[in-house]
């Protein structure tokens, strides 16, 4: 606001304040729903794709939650002065960022998961860790879980860098002041640094949520029947690629737009405290 105060205005303030893009979207949404309601083909398409939408949301939310945890741990490790801890986390971030997500997913589904299953069978035989081995094998047996783990590992590396940058953006004096008041490093991190860093990292974290939602389409390559695979299946069966991919794109767009509304709200909330 303040930065714009000196600028000559073309339009009255209230016109600029109206969220026009939101109105356009609402009108567009209404038009689309009328078209969908009126056309049996689109209705059938929507019904067919609906399970895919639910699975895409499930996949995205689960993978993102896991990625937030992996990212925070890896981000804090990247800030560590301990060379072993720093090296491990840097290795993870650099390797995962250097591999395309699709390759990572295929690797996990067709190479890593079978190898781990075998290793677990070996562990159960020789070390007697039967219940642990059985539960790990059960988790990675499902394609959905493999996709969740793959996406979480991939996005964990991106989120780690966001966390690291956010924490580094807090002036050193804050940590020094907290430590001089007698707080331990962990305590200072938890109550002084992280709450401030959270504000900085919220918008990029939100953006990565939307990016993850879109990248969840890659799971179709490892036999997860999410929205993209449902679309492929339907267009292969009906030969109606036009209607199918219109609907697939519209459904993704609706999910990402709702997501970006959430991100805007978060940004506003983060700014309000300044």
């Amino acid at each position, binding site marked *: 606001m303040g930065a714009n105060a000196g600028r000559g205005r073309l339009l009255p303030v209230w016109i600029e304040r109206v969220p*026009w893009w939101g109105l*356009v979207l609402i009108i567009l949404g209404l*038009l689309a729903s009328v078209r969908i309601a009126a056309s049996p083909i689109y209705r059938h398409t929507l019904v067919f794709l609906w399970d895919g939408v639910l699975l895409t949301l499930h996949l995205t939310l689960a993978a993102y939650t896991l990625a937030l945890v992996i990212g925070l741990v890896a981000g804090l490790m990247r800030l560590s002065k301990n060379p072993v801890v720093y090296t491990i986390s840097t290795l993870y971030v650099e390797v995962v960022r250097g591999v395309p997500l699709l390759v990572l997913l295929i690797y996990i589904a067709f190479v890593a998961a079978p190898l781990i299953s075998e290793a677990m069978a070996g562990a159960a035989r020789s070390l007697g860790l039967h219940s642990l081995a059985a539960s790990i094998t059960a988790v990675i047996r499902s*394609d959905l879980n493999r996709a969740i783990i793959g996406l979480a590992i991939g996005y964990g590396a991106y989120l780690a860098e966001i966390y690291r940058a956010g924490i580094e953006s807090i002036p050193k004096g804050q940590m020094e002041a907290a430590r001089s008041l007698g707080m331990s490093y962990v305590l200072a991190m938890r109550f002084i640094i992280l709450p401030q860093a959270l504000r900085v990292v919220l918008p990029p974290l939100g953006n990565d949520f939307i990016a993850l939602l879109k990248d969840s389409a890659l799971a179709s390559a490892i036999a997860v029947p999410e929205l993209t695979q449902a679309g492929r*299946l339907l*267009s292969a*069966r009906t*030969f109606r690629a*036009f209607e199918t991919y219109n609907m697939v794109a519209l459904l993704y767009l609706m999910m990402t737009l709702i997501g970006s509304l959430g991100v805007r709200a978060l940004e506003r909330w983060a700014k309000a405290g300044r």
Partner: protein
Amino acid sequence: MKGRTVWYALFVLIVALTVGACARSGQQAAPPAAQPAPPAGQPAAAVPDLGGREIKIGSDTTYPPFESVNETTKEIEGFDIDLMNEICKRANCKAKFITTAWDGIFVALAQGQFDAVVSGVTITDERKKTIDFSEAYLRYGQVVLVRSDESAIVGVDSLTGKNVGVQTGTTNDEKASALQKEGKVGGIKRYETFALAVKALMNKDIDAVIIDSYAADGFMNVNPGKLKKVGEPFTSEALGIALKQGDPALKQAFDAALQQIKSDGTLDGLYQEWFVKRAPGK
């Protein structure tokens, strides 16, 4: 911030207009009227000359022995390739194979990205609505492929409660879906290629793969000792060359050439070469 909002609104508007325009053009784009069927090729009829025309052929080259990429030469090879070369020898054309994903292959054909799709394509009535087919060049049945140590699955009737893998959008996918509806199959896992489905089978992610019999042989050859076919073939289908609708010259030439290849024994030779000589265990 404010300037950006305006741009955002403008962008959404453009998207809205584009979608609207597309939707309208979609309604107008009725499928082109079916071409009158060319007269059936008479035995020993002369093969029309295509005048050296280059035929762009789309193919999902992950499907031995029909088409696969040779590990050392990196050339596409297989029964379908030899067949097309024989056809082009007679019809005076040049077969140019282009590797593409199975997913969307018929849409690409209908839109004219290829002149033909030769990729072990089954002739179905559903497909005939948007694309044309040459005469059939090979009959086959679908079979159940399992790991060689499998004992519980002995044929298509013992798949109840089992997880079955297929390639998305194939006739095998359709058959598996139909079996699932009847409760004769537990779950279906859909992969982008049969190669990945077979890999998942060997990794024990799934219990069986439903696949065309000759392709089953192909994968058994690539993975000796690890796979076996169980039960008898449970469908009877035919493979043909998929053609873009509205290209009667190509269909006539291919059908006439196929007639000749069938009657002079060339097709039998190719069959021996790719399916008998290279049958599993030989």
